[in-house]
């Protein structure tokens, strides 16, 4: 079983590569980075450290090799002979690898599944379209499978220099789960560590988005208001912890009403998510997790989507709304999306800016809840100020 993994970044090596090797696959990486290609062909191994607090387990991933994405012949050879193709290049890079994938798939005589390990819910169908755009109209991709993959592990760091002889190490949290959309596959996948194949992929996406991602974002936005630097410190603040758990519960109740208990999960699942936020090994800065608030406040995205789903289920999404209101104060000048949002709030007001990014009406329902919280927060907010207490809304200075 030969698996070609395109991308030698954190998810390609720190997640996909580790699990494929652990499941006995032959792993070949493809990279645009000559230093990484050279590293894999010289050393062939790397480490994955899965850490939670002071507990860590280290895995040696060996017998790997790599090809350069700029070497068309070698890439075509690997693409035509692979039993499974994985992309882990970042959603923004998919368009760049599509022509190469189109060439490779054209040369194949057998169907193959292409799994997109990207942080993009529709990455599979998007990649299929990009590849189709690079093929003659009469060339069908119908025999191949293109599935998005929902990745659970957070891989935070890559340590080491690929030009040296020392092993590179990827650091992540010890979560193995990855979910594949069965309807998008062309043939069944071999049993692989951590894999869940589902007929209800959209539900799994929403489960992750409206619990884990919503909680992560709210930790960042409330942590920012209270002046913390890291997710693992913000979540130790009891007020933030309680708010995040409440917000995730609201999202979970929405999921329960729509998809049932099996997808929605239990309170224990939410506490497990919070314990992942506690993990200092991931060293996740608040500015990274909170970045691009315009996207994160999208109509169906983690916060507004979860709040709308909860509202539909008859749940008052109070803490989700509070999280959205906090996001409207995420004033990180190094983040173009945050700067844009702040500019819009100054020019057209918070209500109109909210309507623009999320489509919510600030005078009704969730929109009104958010607008009311925004008003309360804005009474004390100044750039650089810190909220001393979420419950009493006391600010450090005013």
């Amino acid at each position, binding site marked *: 079983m030969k698996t070609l993994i395109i991308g030698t970044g954190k998810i390609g090596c720190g997640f996909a590569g580790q699990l494929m090797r652990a499941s006995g696959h032959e792993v070949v990486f493809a990279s645009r980075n000559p230093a990484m290609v050279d590293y894999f062909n010289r050393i062939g191994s790397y480490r994955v450290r899965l*850490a939670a*607090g*002071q507990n860590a387990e280290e895995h040696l991933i060996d017998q790997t090799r790599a090809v350069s994405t700029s070497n068309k012949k070698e890439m075509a050879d690997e693409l035509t002979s692979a039993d499974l193709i994985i992309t882990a290049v970042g959603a923004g890079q998919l368009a760049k690898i599509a022509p190469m994938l189109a060439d490779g798939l054209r040369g194949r005589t057998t169907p193959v599944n292409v799994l997109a390990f990207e942080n993009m819910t529709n990455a599979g169908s998007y990649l299929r379209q990009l590849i189709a755009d690079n093929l003659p109209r009469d060339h069908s991709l119908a025999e191949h499978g293109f599935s998005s993959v929902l990745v659970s592990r957070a891989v935070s760091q890559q340590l080491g220099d690929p030009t040296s002889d020392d092993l590179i190490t990827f650091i992540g949290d010890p979560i193995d789960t990855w979910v594949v959309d069965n309807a998008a596959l062309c043939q069944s996948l071999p049993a692989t560590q951590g894999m869940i194949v589902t007929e209800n992929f959209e539900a799994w996406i929403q489960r992750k988005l409206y619990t884990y991602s919503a909680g992560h974002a709210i930790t960042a936005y409330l942590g920012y208001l*209270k*002046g*913390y*630097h*890291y997710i*693992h*410190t913000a979540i*130790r*603040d009891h007020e933030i912890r309680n708010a995040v758990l409440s917000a995730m519960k609201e999202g979970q109740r929405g999921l329960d009403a729509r998809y049932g208990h099996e997808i929605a999960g239990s309170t224990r699942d939410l506490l497990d998510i919070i314990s992942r936020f506690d993990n*200092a*090994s991931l*060293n996740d800065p608040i500015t990274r997790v909170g970045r691009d608030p315009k996207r994160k406040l999208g109509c169906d995205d983690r916060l507004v989507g979860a709040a709308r789903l909860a509202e539909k289920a008859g749940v008052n999404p109070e803490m989700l709304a509070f999280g959205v209101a906090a996001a409207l104060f995420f004033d990180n000048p190094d983040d173009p999306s945050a700067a844009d949002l702040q500019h819009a709030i100054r020019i057209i007001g918070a209500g109109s800016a909210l309507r623009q990014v999320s489509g919510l009406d600030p005078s009704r329902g969730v929109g009104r809840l958010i607008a009311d919280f925004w008003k309360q927060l804005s009474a*004390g907010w100044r750039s*650089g100020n*810190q909220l*001393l*207490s979420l419950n009493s809304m*006391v*600010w*450090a*200075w*005013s």
Partner: protein
Amino acid sequence: MKIAFIITHHPPTRPSPIIPEAIRLLSEWGVNVDVICPEEQMTDLSKVRVEHDLYVLKSGTELALSMAGILHVGGATILNPYPVAEMLRDKIMTSHILQAAGVPTPDAFVTADPKQLIPLLDDGPIVVKPYRGSQGRGVRVIRTANELNETTSEDGFLFAQRYYEPQGLDKKIYVIGDQVYGVKRVWPPRTYEEKLGEPFTISPDLHEIAIKCGRAFGIGLYGFDVIENNGRSYVVDMSSFPGFKGVPNAALRLADYIYSAGERVLSGTPLFPTLRKDALV
């Protein structure tokens, strides 16, 4: 990440749970933390080496400062830098540096002859303080020439400031990085609860003063006492690493700041980008 705390253990009558809690949090986050209590060990000076990525100088004792000085010369990164901690132990230098930075402070004087201070009493009382004192020890308010004549100092000279009668509760301002916190408390506090005081929202003027104090020394971890008199605020004392008692989630915020500082050291980013060069020499 390896961090060492240079501390003094407080007697049980002076509980100080914030630093132990910050140390516990940092350890939980995977930081290799060592605690150095210079007063409780014999140190072979020939064997003192820089062995940590970051030193946190919490103690202000003479011995702790000397150890920090040795580490500073050895190239250690210290929070706060040894020269700044040393300057802030010296009320004469502190007063001058704050004044020069435009921070409102009471007029301050230094003399070996107490009689020379007598004319100052025409404009109201003065307060004399040991120039390296702390915790309010040895502080006396002088209202008359007789009181001044009876005043002696182990320093061989007197450091005096114009005295402003505090109006209302004692106000402490604490700064952790770019975060400024106000805590008000009764003076003198008798219990631990009284020492914790009560957080208050500080005014924009006090916020600006707090920023100026930090810029004057190029540090981000400090505290100062404020006296408000007739609508004006005066910074009467500043310390390099106060107890942060009363700051909401003080241990968590300190641990967050120290962790972030350690990350910056490991990544080669300067820890004190705003540090005045002249404050370090």
